[in-house]
């Protein structure tokens, strides 16, 4: 309509601003609506762009045509000065009823257009979708990859009681870690840019937060359902139950005990386990009889310790997952790091 002419504000004619999205499509928008976006406003005032189709304002890449439509709806409503706060709130509540994907795209686009009120609105909606949810639920909502577990899950356990089963388990973990590393090298995964070395300390914090609160801690998911590992859980229960009980006290780990893994363990399970440890066993189903036996043992033990473990173990067992033990103090980290190094060398 106003092609080739400057956008003149005449009483009977509305003036328009021309916008171009990243995909090349151009549209014209009423001036007062478009000027509600600080970024567009600045472009118009500083460079005079947008007055015609030829010099349409190029919008940032994060703004595609569909999202632009949404943003303009928002602007069109809110730029009218006479609206009451209640009206605006009602509009906002309805406006953010979008699917997650659109909501994220909208947040990103609003941010690139510097439309702060809309960024706050969408951020609040996204925060509501995260608050109080379990990690699985959050991962599902946002399609997040569950990629922590491979590395983190295989941290060695603390062998407080010099339990040969734990020693064995740690050895198995070490082997698995090695296998993973090789797999990664083959896959040629890019190096993570974050420099953080000690990821455990965050887990420290988390497990600390989640000390009694089993709902929220992300249950480490893993595909491996090795039969033999079930028995290890018993051992781990005893050690982790100890740790939970000692949660708030300084406990000195005999670092030396960790290094005892070199000694071949004489116990029966270990002999059975070794050959079974290969990729093929990953998807073994748990023998129901053994599962029951372990359930009973766990419950009994937990009752003795008078803790809230039964529910947690149920959860873990039912998911067929393995649980990383609750680490305690930074001292423990240090000693285990050394331990890890020792294992890798083998």
């Amino acid at each position, binding site marked *: 309509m106003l092609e080739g002419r400057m956008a003149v504000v005449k009483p009977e004619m509305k003036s328009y601003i021309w916008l171009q999205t990243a995909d090349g499509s151009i549209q014209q928008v009423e001036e007062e609506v478009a000027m509600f976006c600080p970024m567009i406003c600045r472009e118009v005032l500083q460079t005079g762009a947008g007055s015609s189709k030829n010099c349409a304002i190029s919008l940032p890449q994060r703004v595609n045509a569909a999202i632009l439509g949404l943003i303009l709806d928002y602007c069109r409503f809110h730029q009218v000065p006479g609206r009451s706060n209640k009206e605006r709130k009602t509009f906002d509540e309805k406006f953010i009823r979008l699917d*997650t*994907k659109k909501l*994220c795209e909208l*947040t*990103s686009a609003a*941010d690139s257009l510097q439309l702060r009120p809309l*960024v*706050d609105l969408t*951020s*609040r909606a*996204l*925060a509501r979708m*995260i*608050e*109080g949810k379990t*990690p699985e639920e*959050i*991962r*599902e909502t*946002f*399609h*997040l*990859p*569950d*990629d*922590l*577990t*491979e590395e983190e899950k295989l941290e060695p356990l603390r062998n407080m009681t010099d339990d040969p089963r734990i020693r064995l388990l740690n050895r198995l973990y070490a082997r698995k870690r090695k296998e993973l590393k090789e797999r990664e090298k083959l896959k040629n995964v890019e190096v*993570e840019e*974050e420099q*953080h070395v000690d*990821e455990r*300390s*965050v887990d*420290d*914090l*988390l497990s*600390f*937060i*989640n*000390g*009694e*609160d089993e709902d*929220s*801690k*992300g249950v480490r998911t893993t595909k491996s359902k090795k039969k033999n590992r079930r028995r290890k859980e018993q051992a781990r229960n005893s050690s982790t139950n100890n740790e939970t009980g000692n949660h*708030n006290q300084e406990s000195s780990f005999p670092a030396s005990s960790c290094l005892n893994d070199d000694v071949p363990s004489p116990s029966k399970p270990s002999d059975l386990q070794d050959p079974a440890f290969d990729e093929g066993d990953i998807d073994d189903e748990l023998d129901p009889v053994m599962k029951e036996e372990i359930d009973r043992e766990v419950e009994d033990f937990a009752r003795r310790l008078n803790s809230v473990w039964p529910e947690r173990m149920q959860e873990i067992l039912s998911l067929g997952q393995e649980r990383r033990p609750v680490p305690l103090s930074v001292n423990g980290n240090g000693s285990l790091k050394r331990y890890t190094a020792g294992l890798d060398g083998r």
Partner: protein
Amino acid sequence: MDTDSGRDLISDLPQSIIETILIKLPLLDAVRTSVLSRKWRYKWATITELVFNDTCLIPCQDKAIISCNLVNFITRCLFLHDGPIHKFELNTSYSPTSPDLDQWLLFLSRKDIKELIIDIGEDDWFRAPSCLFFCPKLTHLVLVRCELNPPPNFKGFLSLKHLSLQQVIIPPHDIEGLISSCPLLESLTLSYFDSLELTIRAPNLKYLNLEGEFKDIRLENTPHLIGISVAMYMTDDIAEHFEQSSGCNFDKFLGCVPRLERLIGHIYFTKYLSIGNEQGSFPVMYQNLKFIELYQVSFEDMKELLVVLRLIVSSPNLEELQISSSSITTTTDIYDLDFWEKDWPADCTFGKLKIVQMSDFSGLPHEIAFIKFLLGHSPVLEQMIVAPTIYVTDKVVKMLIDLLTFRRASPLATVKFVQEPL
């Protein structure tokens, strides 16, 4: 390890947006996002606002363990945090011990802290370490139940805009120094200070909030003050002190606040202002004063009544007036009702007064005369709402009858008599 079908929707948003989202979560949930995926491991660690309150507590039987857990949580969070911290709020009924708090404050003083709010439990009042006084970027400081001892070389909080001290023990001569050494101070709240004599010099101060037993308050250099709210408690000692003091409190307090827009006074505020107040001259006019709220005005004390009248007559643009009467009634029956005819100028008009609300009304002669006065001199009055005190029930009908007979200067005025106390 297979990912769900569909691209990751959120992890690649700019960090500033992620932080906006994380700040809107309770801190516990924000930290928990670190288990979501590898990319989310440390996204929480750069948020610039840390709010520790009861949502961070893990339920447990033993109070000592909860407290210990909280302390550990805060310490670990701070350790893992990366980058500046602009806001730190600690709001809990548990009392972290001094060594912990001191270390946290030392840590924060190195992290460009701007907003600091510490409101902890009542067991032990913590003693603010000296590093608190060397947070140069501090704009917002709220301290509850602590001891403050500004060090001798303290030059002031040069960026501080908002200061709130509640139940804070600070040497009296230091508090004036603290206030005047914050040149940008816009909002000041002092609660539960006992027997304080205070001269406030704050050239940029806009909002003043005082609560406690103040012996003497003088606003000496506060030309930009817009809102004042005072709750004045009074003990017998202070009342005695008042008998002997010279000078007009009204002038000392409201003498140089020409831009005042809102005035709220509770408990003994009007009594405080009445000390030394001379009837007659009104040297200062409050052209911007639109809202006055006075609680517990004693309509049996002529001096307090004079204060109220002086206030409203000096505020030509007053729009809303709320007054509640003090419920202490003496047995005296001598009321100088001639005052209203003779001593008070009859030519004043409240040209903008629209709403008047009288609460705890007990039908005292001066109360009724006051309402009559207002009704007769407010040409644009829209609402006069009167609510009775809960103590007096039998005079209600008579009051109502009296009120309805008064002449109203405003054709729009409605007089509402509300049964329930407001």
